[in-house]
């Protein structure tokens, strides 16, 4: 979808959410692949400030596609995605690039640049706000940006790995670096697509604790896709369940028992 949707209101991408406004509002969102098979339809939910919202559902339910639709990495067919007051589906390409700087993204497979240092990878988180060669590598970066990147790395406990190549890290360490990169972005929210899927249980718990702590300490909104029901229940404030191409569950996590969540599949 390259053209704004009918009826959508264009807005200033710098618009900041009012206190009561959710960081992210998704309303009646639908997506078909190749205009044929429906992946999901009429999806609505919100991501409030300082909360962790988990999206759960069986394989093929469209969880990752939904997450990508929320920043238009995949274009939704119909519906609305608002970041604060800003209607994302109405933005031009240039405005969209700016709007994306408000959302940090942590992927299942970390998606770091393996041949570059850990500190350079973290520094790349600032590329949404600043352009140019000085953020291409830590050796070229201005002192303040280097310090900020190092501080983000310290927040995830990996300051001693700053100059190590990213492809020499374990899976859990790589995922922490991906979180540090999202922090470097100074975004209002973090989207995490199965952040613990390739990790052992201990590393997975550490990443979940880290995301939850950052959410509460820095009032970040965290929207997470997860297959792990215990993670969804223990670390989320709210759970959104997708099944049969729609939202079948949208409830506070304390209202959902683990057995109920497992039965959801």
């Amino acid at each position: 979808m390259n053209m704004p949707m009918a009826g959508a209101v264009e807005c200033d991408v710098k618009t900041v959410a009012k206190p009561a406004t959710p960081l992210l509002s998704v309303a009646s969102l639908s997506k078909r692949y190749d205009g044929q098979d429906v992946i999901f339809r009429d999806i609505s939910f919100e991501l409030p400030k300082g909360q962790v919202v988990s999206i759960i559902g069986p394989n093929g339910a469209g969880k990752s596609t939904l997450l990508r639709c929320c920043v238009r990495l995949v274009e939704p067919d119909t519906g609305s995605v608002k970041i604060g007051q800003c209607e994302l589906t109405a933005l031009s390409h240039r405005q969209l690039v700016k709007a994306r700087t408000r959302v940090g993204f942590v992927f299942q497979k970390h998606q770091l640049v393996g041949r570059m240092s850990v500190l350079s990878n973290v520094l790349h988180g600032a590329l949404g706000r600043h352009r140019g060669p000085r953020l291409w590598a830590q050796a070229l970066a201005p002192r303040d940006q280097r310090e900020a990147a190092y501080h983000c790395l310290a927040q995830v406990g990996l300051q001693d790995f700053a100059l190590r190549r990213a492809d020499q890290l374990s899976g859990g360490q790589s995922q922490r670096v991906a979180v540090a990169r999202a922090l470097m972005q100074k975004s209002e929210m973090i989207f995490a697509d199965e952040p613990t899927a390739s990790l052992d249980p201990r590393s997975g718990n550490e990443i979940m604790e880290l995301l939850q702590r950052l959410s509460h300490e820095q009032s970040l909104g965290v929207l997470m896709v997860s297959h792990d029901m215990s993670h969804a229940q223990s670390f989320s404030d709210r759970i959104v369940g997708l099944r049969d191409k729609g939202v079948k569950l949208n409830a506070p996590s304390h209202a959902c028992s683990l057995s109920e969540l497992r039965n959801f599949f």
Partner: protein
Amino acid sequence: MAIESGAPATVIPSRFDNPSWLSGVLFVLFIGFFSWALYGSEFSLSNLVEGIPNMGVIMSEMVPPDTERAWPIAKSVFVTLQMALVGAVIGIVLSLPLAFLAARNTSPHPLVYKVVRAWVSLVRTIPDLAWALFFVASVGLGPFAGVLTLIVDTIGFCARFFAEAIEEADPQPNEALKAIGAGTVDRCVVAILPEAAPSIINSSLFSLEKAVRSSVVLGLVGAGGIGAELAVSMEMFRYDQAATIILMVFVLVYGVERLSGWAREKCL
């Protein structure tokens, strides 16, 4: 597992499938085409046998190599190396932006992709000697014409292979930076280039070796370097001097290949 007695005999499948009639027709066509090419190229075993004594004479006249003009020849070898180095490095640098325009995943528009790809193909299909003749006619005799030839030749080679390396680069780091609003140029440099770097370095080193080999030949058409010395020595029947030149060229090419192999091991 033991084979039960009385079990039916196993039919062993044949080693090869029977060739289809199309394979037979294609094979016959190939034989016919190859025979036609042998005739057209005047390939003659009798001429080869008759030429063997001449080869022996030339080889004997090459020994011992003449060292009287060793220093002027060495200077020409250095010029050849300089031509190759300048031509390859400038060609590699110019190939990089062209490769990003010629790669499907980074080109700004399909039309740009097709135009740049077509131009690179055109440059590549014209032989280097034809480019050398063109540049000699344009800028005159000498190494500069050779350098221009090597630049164009390197672009034809590197832009294509760099573009393929860029297309094969892991798209995930690029997607991660796209998701957070990083600009296109930044993403190309920090997410795609490092992923494609091993292949790009490999192609660059190979293009340097290729430029050294090409620069030897370019002198034959007046584009500078050791080739001109070799042509003169052969035309003057000074096979002993030609032997000196060939030995120096061998040392140059072998040296560059070893250096390039070492650099490849260190970088990749």
